């Protein structure tokens, strides 16, 4: 099964890197949508159904925290697995993002293998909870 993914990051080269690393890792990537902030991501989610969302935290207009809060308020989007990818590896930040609804948190730097494992973990956990 190929998964459709939404990558949310204000850096176009980082979005490109994440997309490439998902392919390199052997993750079964189907459609890959992109957005440069939370606001644009919410607009994308009205147009497309995705299996998992990967989001940065520090972004203009709507940052990752606000984006997660908005997703929690949306009935159908609340159940979409969300993985935060950030340079911030401080405990306070990780706990904060998990409390806002993130299913996983990856810190940069990360290897292709670790990204695939984390995606499979959160997708597996979510699929298991549906059955």
């Amino acid at each position: 099964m190929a998964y459709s993914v939404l990558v949310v990051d204000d850096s176009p080269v980082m979005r490109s890197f994440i997309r490439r690393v998902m392919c390199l890792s052997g993750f079964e990537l189907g459609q890959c949508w992109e957005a440069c902030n939370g606001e644009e991501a919410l607009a994308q989610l009205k147009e497309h159904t995705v299996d998992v969302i990967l989001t940065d935290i520090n972004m203009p207009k709507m940052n990752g925290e606000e984006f997660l809060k908005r997703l929690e308020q949306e009935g159908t989007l609340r159940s979409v697995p969300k993985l935060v990818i950030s340079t911030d590896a401080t405990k306070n930040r990780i706990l904060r993002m998990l409390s806002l609804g993130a299913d996983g948190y990856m810190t940069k730097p990360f290897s292709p293998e670790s990204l695939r494992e984390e995606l499979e973990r959160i997708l597996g956990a979510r699929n298991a909870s549906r059955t």
Partner: protein
Amino acid sequence: MPHELEHLEAACQDEELTETLRRVSAEVMETMFFSEAVPVDCEHDWLAGAASVRVDFDGSHSGQMWLALSREAIPAIAGAFLGLDPDEAAAEQRSQVILELGNILCGAILSSLWPESQLQLDPPALTAWECTSEGVWHVCLALEEGLLAISIRLSGVKQTC
């Protein structure tokens, strides 16, 4: 504590922090930029022509991080990050990769130095190298092509309950 012991403790702490700087920088370069990074003695003639990035940070710790990448390193680093041949990346893409390198290095280094901290990083900015050696932790690393220099200056630590 006797004065000599205070000096010794500070020197040990500086060495520990500099070692963390080396280790985390090498890990970032290898994992996300697919380049080996080996510590080298500092010879800073090349800094004047380098691409430099400054990242200011604030919160429980405040200060600045500077990064300089020698000109010959830029095509290889940008190409490796984007999955392109070194000459394929456009000038705008190269600039964005250098900024992202500054962002990743700063976040990874600060989180590793102070995992219990609460930090806010400003967006990285391309700027001239202006970091003097005073009150600074600094490393120079040799990449497969070119050189990388990183300096961190801590200007304040806020007491938290």
